[in-house]
């Protein structure tokens, strides 16, 4: 498991809202804390990574979070400019203007263009050894497979042209499980688990990237052991809750509210446990499954990322 942080390129993905940005940010903090020069890149630039690190903004050119840690956002247009300048040898930035405005539509129609620029930029950072580890806060389920599969796909579509020449070295990086891995984040809920299972299968079938681990995020702590639960049920009756109300000088209704909150917590946890069972049964047993606790306090900002990084560190 310790090999996770010794890789060089990690794609963190999963259904929308499950905690990809949170987990990617935590990975970054953890790796940087071990002295590895780390870059975290938010592929869909919504500003969530900047909010997680409380660093204002994360431009394409990168923002220092701490001496070992930088954060950036993907910008396919900027990536195109960089690519043109560095690799295709188109020096005059001004000339790219019309391309930029038109880029959106072409990139939508021509499969893989946007994807190859995204993956290309990330692989380039790995190859150029600007960082020891690049953590990608990747797109959610639908798009990430397309991104990871882009270098393979582009070969079929673009028969000539410079992009084609670039795909070989990208593939070498992507398909080697020593440097590169995918991390699927999910939550103990029906749809996120269904998507995680679907995604793990698609990553296996359609990309050359190794699935490094699956992370169940927002897992509620187990409230009671078996015996305790039975005792709780025995207490959660009219006469006992009246006794509790008397013993605490509270109204019976208030004690009822407290007990029913515990019942709700048990129910949510039990529903979640069923989904986690499905997850465990569905993924390849050789892929490690990690658990991160639900944070009851505010779950964003640096303080929360530190907590998640800590929990992640314990799981690794």
């Amino acid at each position, binding site marked *: 498991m310790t090999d996770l942080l010794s890789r060089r390129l990690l794609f963190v993905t999963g259904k929308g*809202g499950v905690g990809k940005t949170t987990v990617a940010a935590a990975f970054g903090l953890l790796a940087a804390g071990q002295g590895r020069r780390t870059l975290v890149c938010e592929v869909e630039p919504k500003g969530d990574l900047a909010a997680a690190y409380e660093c204002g903004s994360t431009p394409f050119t990168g923002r220092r979070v701490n001496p070992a840690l930088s954060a950036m956002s993907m910008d396919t247009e900027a990536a195109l400019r960089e690519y043109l300048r560095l690799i295709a040898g*188109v020096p005059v930035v001004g000339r790219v203007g019309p391309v930029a405005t038109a880029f959106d539509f*072409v990139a939508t129609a021509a499969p893989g263009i946007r994807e190859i620029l995204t993956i290309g930029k990330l692989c380039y950072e790995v190859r150029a050894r600007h960082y020891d580890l690049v953590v990608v806060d990747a797109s959610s389920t639908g798009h990430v497979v397309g991104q990871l599969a882009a270098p393979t796909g582009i070969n079929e*579509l673009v028969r000539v042209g410079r992009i084609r020449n670039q795909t070989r070295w990208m593939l070498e990086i992507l398909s080697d499980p020593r440097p590169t891995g995918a991390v699927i984040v999910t939550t103990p809920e029906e749809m996120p688990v269904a998507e995680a299972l679907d995604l793990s299968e698609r990553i296996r079938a359609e990309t050359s990237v190794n699935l490094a681990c699956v992370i169940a995020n927002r897992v509620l702590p187990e409230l009671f052991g078996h015996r305790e639960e039975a005792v709780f049920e025995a207490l959660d009756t009219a006469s006992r809750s009246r006794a509790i109300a008397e013993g605490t000088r509270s109204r019976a209704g*208030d004690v009822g509210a407290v007990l029913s909150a*515990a019942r709700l917590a048990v129910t949510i946890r039990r529903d979640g446990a069923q989904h986690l069972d499905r997850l465990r049964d569905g993924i390849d047993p050789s892929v490690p499954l990690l658990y991160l606790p639900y944070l009851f306090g*505010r*779950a964003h900002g640096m303080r929360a990322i530190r907590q998640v990084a800590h929990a992640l560190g314990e799981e690794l």
Partner: protein
Amino acid sequence: MRSVNAVKEAFRGAGIEQLVAAKEVVVAVGPGGVGKTTTAAALAATAAQRLDAKVLVLTVDPARRLADALGLRGIGNQATRVCSDAFAAGGVEPKGELYAAMLDMSESWDELVRRHAPDDATARQILANPLYQNVSRRFAQGHDYIAMERLYEIHEEGEYDLVVVDTPPSRNALDLLDAPERMKEFFSSRLLRWLTVPYRSRLVNVAARPFYQVADRVLGSQLLQDLADFFILLQTMQDGFVARADAVSHLLRDVRTTFLVVTTLEATPGREAGEMIAALAERRLHLGLLVCNRVLPRTLTDPSAARAADAMARFSEELAASLADGLSVEREPVEEGVVRLVLEEVAQSFGNLRQVATREAELLHELSEGHEVTATVPYQPGNVSDLAALLKMGASIWGGGGAETGPEQSRPPR
């Protein structure tokens, strides 16, 4: 354009039943994963239960068990009747009829192409073009447009008294609302003109020259040629598409249409829902209902309940001593220590959930600050996967009769 406020005024206090009875189209919008699809289905099912109306719910990507419950497995754009047996199983005799359909993206695109292409041959050419396959599956804004387009189509046909549409998860709240306009822009864009100029005469266009040079260099001329061919085909559909997008856009603004914003009261979805509400107002679209889903019980924020929880932790030792007296579980007497632990854990768990519930309450207050009719739906154990659960959920949206968990409909003063 009608005054949104006047309409809102008319509906204030009128409740959901009147709202749904007065509208023909309800568009469910909101962040992904919050229960949009489920809420749309619950609203439609409950409308069919309580109103003498033919109701259709148009769903996008339903969870498997929900699709099963609605009889949607393996069915594309076709609408199917949810048979009244399913209602009967929930102990309900519906006044109306419920129909369900699934939105099949690529099938819908194909239909659209067949409709707008000048002739069958062109339609076939477009459908067979590999770039078309790609655009129709992946153009996210296209998905938004398709949802609205299908809605228009169904509404035009006039089969149903009420159509509740679910929408695809979109990355940006505004995309859905602006999708028809975007579709028009796309067809009139300069790029489309450039790309459709026959390849050889391109160099004539001075403004476009750098574009072609760079594009050639990076993409290769073959791909560029393919793109041009594709866009030339697309352009044959321009007039049809533009007129249609206009009509769709009108339907969204029509008095007979209302929007339903669904969200959970978590930070990120809550923020997106807030943006959505603002976007609706800005475009003068009618927000009929805000549904906050999977909300924790309000009693969690009662200060007196919190005091009770504190006291349970503080006096756990004394309480345990008296409660354990004569208590046995699974035929074994219970030790005081276990009772004490349970009491402390219960109190702690209350404190944890209370934190979350307090944030939810703050967010609810913020979101319902306008004058929307707000409904909260509690967490439903074991997921919402059959008609009975949908109706139960619908009952809490409706408020009033039948909701076990106590509906909360708040209409804050203006």
